[in-house]
C-alpha cells in the first residue's frame, strides 16, 4: 500500500513530467511556424515565433521550480531521483531548442527573400526542419515510454540532419559571384546550423531517457572524438 504522502508526491512528479514533455510539443509548434515562415518569407509569423518563446521560457521556469520543490520537500531516491534529474536536463534542452527557433526567426528579415534559383538550398533546409521536428516527437515519445531503443534511434535521424547540414554548406559555398546571393546563402548556413542544434537537443533528450532507465549517462555519439 502506498503511503498517502508518497502518492501525492508521485502525482506531482507525473505532472512535472507532463509539463516538461509538453515543452517539447511547444518546441515542435515553434518549429512548424519557423519552417513556414522560412518557406513563405512570412516575417509576421517569424515575429510571432519570437514573441511566443516566452511560453517556452515560462515552461522552463515552471519545471525548474517544480524540480527544486520536489528535491527540497520530498527527498526523492532511485527512479524518482533519476526522473527528476532527467527532467531538469530535458527542460534545459527544450529551452535551448526554442531559442534556436528564435534565432532563425530573427535572421529571416536580415537575410531577405531568397534569390532566384536557390530552391535547392531552401528545400534542404525545410527537409532538415522536418527531420528535426520528427526527432522532437520521437524524443518525447521514447522518454514517456522509457524506450531506450527508440531513444537510441534518434542518432540515425541525427546523422541525416548532419549530412544535410554539410550539403547546405557546400551548396552555399558554390553560390556564385553575386554578393547579395552569397550573403543570403551565408545566412542560410546559420539557419542550417540552428536546425542541426534542434536535432542535437532531441538526441540529448534521448540520452536522458537512457539515463532514466539504466541509471548510467552515456553519449549516444561522441562528436568530440569522432571515429575516422
Amino acid at each position, binding site marked *: 500500500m502506498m*503511503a498517502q504522502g508518497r502518492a501525492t508526491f508521485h502525482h506531482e512528479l507525473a505532472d512535472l513530467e507532463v509539463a516538461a514533455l509538453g515543452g517539447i510539443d511547444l518546441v515542435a509548434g515553434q518549429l512548424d511556424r519557423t519552417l513556414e515562415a522560412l518557406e513563405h518569407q512570412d516575417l509576421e509569423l517569424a515575429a510571432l515565433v519570437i514573441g511566443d518563446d516566452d511560453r517556452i521560457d515560462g515552461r522552463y521556469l515552471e519545471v525548474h521550480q517544480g524540480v527544486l520543490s520536489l528535491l527540497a520537500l520530498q527527498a526523492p531516491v532511485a*527512479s524518482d531521483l533519476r526522473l527528476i534529474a532527467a527532467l531538469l536536463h530535458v527542460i534545459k534542452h527544450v529551452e535551448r531548442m526554442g531559442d534556436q527557433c528564435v534565432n532563425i526567426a530573427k535572421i529571416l528579415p536580415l537575410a531577405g527573400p531568397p534569390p532566384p534559383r536557390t530552391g535547392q538550398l531552401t528545400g534542404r533546409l525545410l527537409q532538415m526542419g522536418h527531420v528535426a521536428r520528427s526527432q522532437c516527437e520521437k524524443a518525447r515519445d521514447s522518454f514517456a515510454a522509457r524506450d531506450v531503443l527508440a531513444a537510441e534511434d534518434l542518432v540515425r535521424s541525427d546523422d541525416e540532419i548532419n549530412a544535410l547540414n554539410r550539403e547546405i554548406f557546400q551548396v552555399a559555398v558554390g553560390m556564385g559571384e553575386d554578393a547579395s546571393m552569397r550573403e543570403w546563402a551565408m545566412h542560410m548556413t546559420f539557419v542550417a546550423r540552428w536546425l542541426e542544434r534542434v536535432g542535437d537537443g532531441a538526441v540529448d533528450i534521448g540520452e536522458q531517457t537512457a539515463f532514466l532507465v539504466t541509471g548510467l549517462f552515456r553519449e549516444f555519439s561522441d562528436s568530440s572524438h569522432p571515429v575516422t
Partner: protein
Amino acid sequence: MSAMTIAEAPATPLLATAPSPAKHVDIRGLFAYYGEGRALNGVDLRIPAGEVTALIGPSGCGKSTLVRCINRMHEEVRGARVEGEVTLDGHDVYDPAVDVVAVRRAIGMVFQKPNPFPTMSIRDNVAAGLRLTGRRGTRDLDERVERALRDAGLWEEVEDRLGHPGVSLSGGQQQRLCIARTIAVEPEVILMDEPASALDPIATLRIEELVGKLKQRYTIVIVTHNMQQAARVADTTAFMLDGELVEHDTTERIFTKPADQRTEDYITGKFG
C-alpha cells in the same frame, strides 16, 4: 573463535592516533526464530570492516533481529533460537567455547532509547562496562572514561559535572553517554538499533556526525527507519523484507539505481 581470543584483544590508544582495529562480520545462512515463528530466513551478509552499514526495511522485516543475532542478544529472549553462522574476522561468534560476555564486549550495542543506568553518575555510567570487564584502577578508569567521553563528543559538555546523574542529561546527551559507555570497553563492532529515532533533529545530527567519526576505528551497523539518515551516514546499505536480505550494495547505488524492484518500491514509497 575462542573466548580468550576476543577477551584478550589488545587495548587500543586514542581515536586520533590509533590504527583501525575494526573487523568485518560475516553472516551466512542465518535463520532466527521466536518460538515457532521465523524472523530471519537464511540471511547472507558481509559487513565490511571500518565502514558503516545501514539496515533498512519495513517494520517486522527482521533488521533488529539480525543485529541482535550478531552479538547474541537474540538468544536472551525466551524461546528464541538461531541457526547459521556469524563470524567476526573469521571467528565463530556462536562457537560453544566462546564466552558470550566477551562477544558482547567485542560487539557493543546502542539502543533506540537512551538507557543510562538511572542510579549512576555520568562517570559511573561510562565506567560500568569497564568495571564489569575487570578494569578497576581509578587512574586507568578516569583516563578511559575521559577518552570514551571525548570520542563520543560529550566530554566538553560534562567534564565539570561527571558526578551528576546520567539521567540529568538531555536525550541526545544521554544517547552519546550510552555510546561512550559502549566504546569505553573498546569493542570492534558497534551495533546501533535506531539510535536517533527518539532524538530531535539537532541531536540526531550530532549522532550522525559521531557515527562518521567512529567508523575510523569501528565497524558500525546501524538499523534505521530514516532512509535519509541511511543515505547520509552509511557506506553500504542492506534492504531487508520479510526476514530476507533483498539487496546489499553501496549506499549510493541503493539510493540511485537499486538492482531489485522490491528495494526500488520500498525506498520510493510505493509500499510500506
